[in-house]
């Protein structure tokens, strides 16, 4: 029995004579594999990752070429730390990218998920296959999550590599004024990268929902990035303080809490809960919209 057989029942009650691989297929793994292949086979995806990687590289080269260490207190945070420990180029890169570059690329990928298939007219064929709408939605979101990870690593890893090449690798000063060794600073960099990845998954869920609303991918992308900007603006207004803990961008800069001594985990937890809430709400909205949608294209 082929996985693409349209007569395959959609519920969980598989016939007994099914080959072992069919369970694997039913879980949607081939669909996810092909989805990832498509996402990372696109030139657009690689162009975005390259631009992201260029941010820390540019910072490192400029700091290296300019005479002397940067003046503390000027420029992006941690810029003056870079000359002490090259690994911090990755952190500086994340500081610079998180307000705009990272959300922009996530919006492009998440906004394209369903609307892109709709505009190409391929959504119908995906749904003819026994994938089921829920599974398609999950696979699309999983691919967007994979891009969140790839985008964060595209800033952090080239940043760290370039930093190690251009600057000494030594003890580094944390925000609290304490100094930690190289091994601990690698760990902190990884923690910061993990924090940034978690910070972006809520935005990806919002993008997925908006993508189910339309067949015009550019519209979904633009709407998602506009929401990011609106969230950031509201977060800066003290008049709506009550709203702040509910904005998905509220904890974005709090990854600095991981660079204190001792590490302050409270913002990591709060951020993870907030993003999980966004996944739940916008996942449910996306399901409601997508499962009840007439797919004509």
């Amino acid at each position, binding site marked *: 029995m082929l996985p693409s057989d349209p007569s395959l029942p959609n519920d969980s009650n598989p016939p007994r004579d099914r080959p072992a691989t069919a369970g694997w297929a039913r879980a949607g793994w081939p669909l996810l594999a092909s989805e990832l292949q498509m996402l990372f086979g696109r030139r657009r995806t690689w162009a975005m990752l390259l631009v992201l990687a260029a941010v820390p590289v540019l910072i490192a080269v400029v700091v290296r070429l300019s005479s002397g260490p940067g003046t503390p207190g000027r420029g992006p945070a941690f810029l003056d730390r870079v000359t002490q420990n090259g690994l911090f180029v990755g952190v500086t890169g994340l500081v610079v990218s998180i307000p705009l570059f990272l959300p922009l690329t996530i919006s492009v990928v998440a906004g394209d998920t369903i609307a892109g298939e709709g505009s190409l007219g391929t959504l119908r064929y995906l749904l003819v296959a026994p994938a089921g709408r829920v599974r398609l939605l999950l696979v699309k979101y999983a691919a967007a999550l994979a891009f969140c990870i790839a985008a964060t690593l595209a800033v952090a890893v080239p940043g760290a590599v370039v930093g190690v090449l251009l600057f000494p690798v030594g003890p580094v000063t944390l925000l*609290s*004024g304490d100094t930690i060794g190289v091994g601990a600073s690698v760990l902190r960099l990884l923690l910061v990268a993990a924090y940034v990845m978690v910070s972006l998954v809520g935005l990806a869920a919002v993008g997925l929902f908006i993508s189910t609303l339309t067949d015009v991918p550019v519209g979904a992308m633009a709407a998602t990035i506009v929401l990011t900007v609106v969230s950031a603006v509201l977060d*800066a*207004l*003290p008049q709506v303080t009550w709203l702040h803990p509910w904005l998905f961008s509220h904890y974005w800069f*709090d990854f*600095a809490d991981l660079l204190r001594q001792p590490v302050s985990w409270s913002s990591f937890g709060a951020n993870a809960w907030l993003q999980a809430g966004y996944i*739940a709400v916008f996942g449910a909205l996306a399901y409601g919209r997508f499962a*009840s949608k007439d797919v004509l294209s």
Partner: protein
Amino acid sequence: MTRLWLRWLPAVVVPAVIAAGALAGSFQASAADNLPAKTPEQVLAMVGADTVRALSGTLEQTSELGLPQLPAGAPSSSADMASALDLLAAPHTARIYLDGPANARVQVMDQLAERDVIRHGNEVWTYSSKDNSVTHETLPAAGLKGKTAAATPQLQTPDQLAQRMLAALDASTTVTVGQDTSVAGRPAYALVLTPRSADTLVGSVSIAVDSQTGLPLSVAVQARGQEKPAFRLVFTDLVLQAPSADLFAFTPPPGAHITQRTRPQQADERPPGEPRAPGGNSGSATPAHTVSGQGWDTVIALPATAMPADLTASPLLGHAAQAVDGGRLISTSLVNVLLTNDGRIFAGSVPLARLQSAAAER
């Protein structure tokens, strides 16, 4: 049709569950515990007998003073005034570590930055991550008194603030015990200080006192005619254990700009009573001020020479002050400051009319 409707069900249920969870969480936080009833005297005695010598915790300071609020990170004309305003008006989170009278560390956690004050024996270090600067000061040996070290005058623990307020308690204040609360997960008695005088802006001061140790856990100052506390300092997280000793051992990071400081020979004690004197005018150069009235409706008067000319001309001041009869008024929910036309300053937790009458007396 019904099936299509069913598919929207999760989209309704999930936000409802989250909203219910958030509401339940906030109710739980303020849930009253059933503590054995105590008289105000007994609770005051608990505060006096409190034996906490070491703790690590997180403090949150918020204020609703009715000052003009600026968007975070907005450029400002006067950096010094803006930072003073920021310390007063903006919310702060700080971690605090105390171990006996000799060891203290306060970390004011800003976004992407941190300000530290570390006290280890007679050594006091400050560190600011924004400009990577360090100051160092050696205190006289006699400074080691009290049960826990006072780390910084800007940010105190609820304990230090409450002790100062309770030290100034007199007949002008009614002390009652309010409904039991819970602060940082610890059941606490609520000690409520209410001014007897009707002529003050302060509605009441409530101090949450830990039911086990007697340690004050939060201080909230309520202004008259305002529902939210005008000033609130509260532990959001508290562990009553000695923090790790290496937190207090500070070595200046390489590349930091180090300034040595010597403390001017002057009594560091400010008159208790008013917890937060506005403007921080308690510097060494302040000319003699006169105090009229007592208790909650005290008015402090400064002569015309007290105010630096550049402060009077500051555009921020012009923005914050409003013209009133006899001068200009800076009004907050807790403190009114009257700048008379001849340059004198009258300040107090009192209505404008009392400041005006104090100004008219001479």
